[in-house]
């Protein structure tokens, strides 16, 4: 690992910001999609009608911001360390759905989400190593 900058350039802070941007962008995308939802229109499967929602544009900006800070993080922290840490977003998103989007999550779905999170936590390191080599 190289010398780590401090302050706003601190890679761990940037990793946190990257995760926060992904988390908020997921919630904004869902809210934006709800605003323009046209499930009876077959063309809406392609999703382009989503661009009519300002929330979707905010989400796009956050996705770009998360991508930039992620690239910055990878200059200082190896992928097989940064990637498993970044997966905390897998816990935040379902909680955000429940707390901020008011989604009714059944016990069955919570169990499924928990298994996926445990599975992802188990494979995060080997997957990051594989991705580096692919």
């Amino acid at each position, binding site marked *: 690992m190289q010398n780590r900058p401090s302050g706003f350039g601190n890679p761990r802070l940037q990793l946190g910001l990257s995760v926060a941007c992904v988390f908020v962008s997921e919630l904004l995308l869902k809210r934006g999609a709800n605003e323009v939802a046209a499930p009876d229109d077959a063309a809406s499967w392609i999703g*382009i009608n989503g661009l009519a929602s300002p929330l*979707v544009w905010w989400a796009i900006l956050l996705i770009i911001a998360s991508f930039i800070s992620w690239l910055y993080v990878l200059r200082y922290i190896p992928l097989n360390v940064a990637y498993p840490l970044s997966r905390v977003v897998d816990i935040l998103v379902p909680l955000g759905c429940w707390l901020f989007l008011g*989604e009714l999550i059944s016990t069955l779905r919570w169990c*499924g989400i928990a298994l996926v999170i445990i599975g992802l936590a188990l*494979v995060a390191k080997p997957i990051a190593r594989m*991705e580096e080599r692919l």
Partner: protein
Amino acid sequence: MSFLAFFFIVVSLVTFVAAQLILKRAMEFSATNGMRNAYFISRVAIGVVLMTVSFFLTLGLLQRFDLSYLYPFQGLSVIFITILAAVVLKEKLSARLTIGALLITVGIVLVSMS
């Protein structure tokens, strides 16, 4: 869930994983060969197109399903990478990977039933 929805979920994840790997290759190539060449530009263009396809398909899916329902399907991307690594790198599955992939699969099945 309809077959169409599952199809779009798989396509959006496959395009996303493919885009990530293509962009990574392009960036590695640019480190030694620079960015002003047809190979780099074409790979970045393909990566961006695939990312865009994945993004809009997700946006279409979000109009129809809860985020708490769709999000766990992202675990499938891990399965794709594992399969790809097994085929391309001839990587053997460790016990940890196998158990993780199984948990993710069972979790996704439970979510899809909910």
